[in-house]
């Protein structure tokens, strides 16, 4: 074993690379963050980095953008609406997809390959093309404008990718588990419930984050199926309505971007502990 310090030196190029990438990645966001605290007259005339020349001159900062965003979007009701939409729209497809992915990965049945290809191929269907035919049926069923409709819609649009990712993970589980469990007399459902799902927690966690973010940031689906009246409108709809129709007050978007980013980031950070190594140690090939 080499001492830690020389190990660190040996790895210096790697550290430098990682830090360089991180700086490139965070730079634009820092710019947005600083911009969100500046008055609009300053934003149009000088770059955001100019505030860094006198970072403690607090007269160049303002909370006005945040104040206006928070008061205008009706924060409580809007956050609630967004959660009402997002949580079921996130859980529903994961449940449906787990079942399907399990069958595709570990069961033999007629048409298996065909349906798998079909499901994955549906990834490419542009959802804009589905809006009119689906909304027409929603009208007949009385689902337009209801939360139930939008949950189903997001579940449908998210399914192909969720199935694809879940299949990739579940099919990688070691076959010995299934063989030994079947010999022990476990039914397929018991195996699913007590082995497959617990072992898939890391995959479910990462997929859940992405589905959550997509639903959270979606504007079009919400506007079409749900409408934009304040009692149902989610965050994205209210935020996009902050800016005037010619783009006046666009600087509010800078603050709004951070307001709407808070929850997805919290969820990402809190699910990160599922990404650690070792949960599957010894039980999965890779």
């Amino acid at each position, binding site marked *: 074993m080499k001492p830690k310090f020389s190990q660190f030196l040996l790895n210096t190029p790697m550290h430098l690379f990682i830090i360089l990438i991180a700086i490139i990645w965070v730079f634009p966001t820092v710019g947005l963050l600083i911009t969100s605290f500046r008055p609009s007259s300053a934003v149009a005339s000088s770059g955001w980095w100019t505030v860094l020349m006198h970072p403690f001159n607090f007269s160049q900062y303002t909370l006005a953008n945040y104040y206006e965003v928070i008061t205008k979007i009706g924060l409580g009701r809007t956050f609630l609406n967004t959660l009402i939409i997002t949580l079921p729209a996130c859980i529903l497809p994961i449940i*449906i997809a787990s079942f399907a992915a399990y069958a595709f990965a570990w069961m033999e049945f007629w048409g298996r390959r065909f349906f798998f290809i*079909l499901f994955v*191929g549906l990834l490419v269907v542009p959802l804009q093309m589905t809006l009119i035919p689906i909304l027409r049926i929603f009208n007949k069923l009385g689902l337009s404008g209801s939360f139930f409709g939008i949950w189903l819609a997001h579940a449908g649009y998210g399914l192909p990718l969720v199935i694809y*990712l879940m299949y990739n993970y579940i099919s990688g589980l070691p076959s010995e588990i299934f063989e030994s469990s079947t010999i022990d007399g476990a039914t397929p459902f018991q195996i699913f419930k007590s082995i497959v799902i617990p072992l898939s927690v890391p995959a479910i966690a990462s997929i859940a984050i992405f589905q959550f973010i997509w639903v959270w940031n979606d504007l079009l689906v919400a506007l079409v199926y749900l409408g934009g009246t304040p009692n149902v409108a989610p965050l994205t709809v209210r935020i996009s309505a902050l800016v005037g129709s010619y783009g006046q007050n666009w600087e509010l978007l800078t603050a709004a971007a951070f307001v709407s980013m808070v929850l997805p980031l919290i969820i990402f950070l809190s699910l990160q502990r599922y990404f650690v190594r070792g949960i599957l140690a010894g039980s999965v090939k890779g």
Partner: protein
Amino acid sequence: MRTKWFTPWFYVIPALATLVFFLIYPSINTLIISFFGPQSKEFVGFSNYIYCFTNETMLSAFRNNLLWVAIFVPFTVFLGLILAVMLDRVHYESLIKSIIFMPMAISFVGAGVIWKFVYSYRPIGSGQIGILNAFLSYIGVQPIPWLIERPWLNNICLIIVGIWIWTGFCLVVLSASYKGIPRELLEAARVDGANEYRIFWKIILPLMKPTVAVIATTMLINVLKVFDIVYVMTNGGFSTEVIANRMYKEMFLFRNYGRASAIAILLLLFIIPMIVINVQRFKEQEATR
């Protein structure tokens, strides 16, 4: 696993039903109206498809999408992969991961605002408010109007925005897969004296191949559907048009449902080769387990 013949269907039917309703039925509907005129009233045969392959803007959209595929897909997948492996060895992993992931959490509207600032151009002599041009001015170079320098620079500028947003996705999924590789395997190779590059190419990559393939396919499909970035930044001006943005315009702005549908069906057709590759992989993977 052996089951009764009907058991698998209990597992598949909820997904099948949902997909039939939300994606398959609308796709068939799309296929049909792609042979009809703007308002789906008169049958026009293949003329919408002919339009797609003869109209100049459409052709430039195809070319641009190819450029997206050639740059965006390798960059996101490779960067995600390298970072997944590297980050596993540093103790500040979760911080960096959060930073790379952050753009995913920013809405497209927010991302559009950010990058308009990065690429912003002001004439020489007035203060630059875009960081890139401010830097150029600082070192005494003329500012560049990034988003209108066609045909390469502006497209690449848009692709960079895409890479910035999507690398986080690749990183998170690939990292989860990398962490599934048993450490003993890597340690054993190190003990045998293999260097890190060999370990990466000979052990890590083969084990992660299925996930890399899934991510690459997902990114590829993503690129074919890329829309928001272009719509927000240039709306296809200055030869930056892409297929999906064209479809959106024909559909919602020009209200030509026939053409929009034909473009959507073409997108579906482009994906067929990729699905064939997937079938290959599907077979391989089962053969090896």
